[in-house]
């Protein structure tokens, strides 16, 4: 059975700790852009923890919401890409082929979630920080778009390994970096085609909803509302 990878984000567990943010950066060779570039909106965070204020002091609340690529089944970023750099894989992932991207930035405009980030300059790692780079993930050059891949390198590695071991992937065998690090287990990743997987069960929760569902993007990420 083909996989259909998805995620559940439990907002009742998320503590806003941003372990996911740094874990993703570490796993996926996301460059830091430095203070000057960050100040002009060039910082890249494939996953971010949105925070929203409600009310005024003293009756004030804050809510956190981790936002990453929603791996939309009807992804607006895909049809607009003239070079198929943003495209749909057989497993339903929204893949980004950096080599094919020519930097029109159209996909980023079309993405309602603003989860696509552009390399405004060639990324640089002050030596020897480059020794940390994950050899399983290509680094991007100036002028290309990048975004959360659902840690596709981990997915492929696990699938290849499972094939080599001639045994199916078990639920939980495979975690993207953000979910693996998340101390509160707010991020649960797995196969939506397996009705018994943790992510499938959570996605059916009555607390579940999709972000900007009304846009018809059919995200594969389900947000589980904070229980009051």
């Amino acid at each position, binding site marked *: 059975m083909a996989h259909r990878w998805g995620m559940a984000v439990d907002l009742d567990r998320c503590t806003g700790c941003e372990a996911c943010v740094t874990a993703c950066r570490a796993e996926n060779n996301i460059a830091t852009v430095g203070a000057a570039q960050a100040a002009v*909106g060039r910082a890249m965070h494939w996953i971010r923890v949105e925070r929203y204020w409600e009310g005024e002091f003293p009756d004030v609340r804050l809510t956190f919401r981790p936002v990453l690529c929603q791996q939309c089944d009807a992804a607006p970023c895909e049809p607009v890409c003239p070079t198929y750099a943003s495209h749909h894989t057989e497993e339903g992932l929204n893949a980004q082929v950096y080599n094919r991207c020519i930097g029109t930035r159209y996909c980023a405009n079309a993405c309602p979630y603003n989860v696509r980030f552009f390399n405004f300059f060639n990324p640089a790692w002050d030596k020897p920080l480059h020794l940390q780079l994950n050899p399983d993930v290509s680094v991007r050059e100036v002028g290309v778009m990048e975004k959360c891949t659902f840690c596709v390198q981990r997915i492929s590695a696990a699938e290849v390994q499972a094939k080599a071991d001639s045994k199916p992937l078990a639920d939980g065998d495979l975690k993207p970096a953000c979910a693996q690090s998340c101390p509160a287990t707010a991020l649960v990743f797995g196969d939506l085609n397996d009705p018994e997987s943790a992510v499938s069960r959570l996605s059916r929760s009555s607390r579940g909803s999709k972000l900007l569902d009304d846009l018809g993007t059919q995200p594969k990420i389900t947000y589980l509302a904070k229980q009051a």
Partner: protein
Amino acid sequence: MSATSDRRITDDLLRPLLTTTARFYLLVAFLGTIVATGVGAWLYQVYAGFGLTGIRWPVFWAFYVTNFVFWIGISHAGTLISAILRLVNARWRRPVTRCAEAITVFALMIGAMFPIIHLGRPWLFFWLVPYPNQRGIWPNFRSPLVWDFFAISAYLTGSVLFLLLPMIPDFALVRDRTTGWRHRIYGMLALGWQGTTKQWHRLESAMHVMAIAILPVAVSVHTIVSFDFSMAPVPMWHSTIFGPYFVAGAIFSGIAALILAMAVLRKTLRLEEYLHPVHFHNLGKLLLLMSLLWGYFVFAERLTVWYGNEPSEMAVFNATQHGAFAPLYWTMVVCNFVVPVSILSFKKLRTIAGCAVASSTVLVGMWLERFLIIVPSLSHKYLPYSWGTYRPRPVEIMITISTFAAMSLLYVLFAKFVPIISVWELKVGAHEAHPVPAGELSDDAQEMWRPQP
């Protein structure tokens, strides 16, 4: 009278081609420097990185795409106007058509550069082009950017033909008036024009076919440019009004550009006898009509958004109506509506100067309109956490300025090497107004003009 008038027409209109003043060189040098600076700025941007621009998350399109839409819009001056005027056989069109068609071609050339200028990796721009390649993949035909490629290339080809066809008899005229290298070059451009009845006939039918064919192309071009926006689920982009709204805006700005170009040419090339106040008067009426139409579109668009009260759209609406973009927005309204309507509604004010003033503000206003369609929406997409704003940086400003210089430069050169008013069409106009027996035609006219069967 006709003979002398024919000769005078020829003399007047060919004068700029045959005599070169110091002023011309100065002007070319001045404009050329600005254009060269713009090219340099772009090359530096390619070298140093796209980050030199003010583009940022989440405003990924700004000045460059504004310029793209603006110049493609301007290109609607010519072809549309002259095609329509040709088809309805408006007599007053004759001195106007070539000016207009030239604007089209140059504006398109400039506009078409922006999809390349704005690329993150412009050296790979040819990946947008559908051709069988070693990569074994076609571009994505679902992408409006690829539609742009088809639309713009078709439009450019069509408008170049549309401009060139009626230039053939004039090239022949220049050929016969010159010697040496000029003679040879204009000879080649004249494509062996002899002025035979058959040739005239073919030219007329070709023009007629082109005039019909170019209309849907022109309409489709700006519709497709509007699709670059309306196909994306971005607040206030995703709207059915965008096609006609963009086409109307394009024609609007196109006419303004034409009026301005004509006013300038009239003064500098001393074409007062050919470009009459009535021409401006008529174009002014057209501009007024488009201004009203534009106002109607904006009103319709804004009203539905406001009434619909959809949160994500309202964020954009508020930002433009009374937020950070309001100063630009209201400047746009003044430029595109208040000024042109107040001037052009009054016959007395619809003078050459009045039309030129109105056209100038319309050009400013339409540029702002393109900007205000793009930037506020991208600044205010659905998730407020990801809102951001945009500020242009020097490289974008320089390149923008240089496009205006490039337009002027191309126009100056064009007027230098090609009669900016179609000589033969003007003569036809003169003869239609005052028919003369064939025998009394001047030599020139005999050569050039044989009445159609």
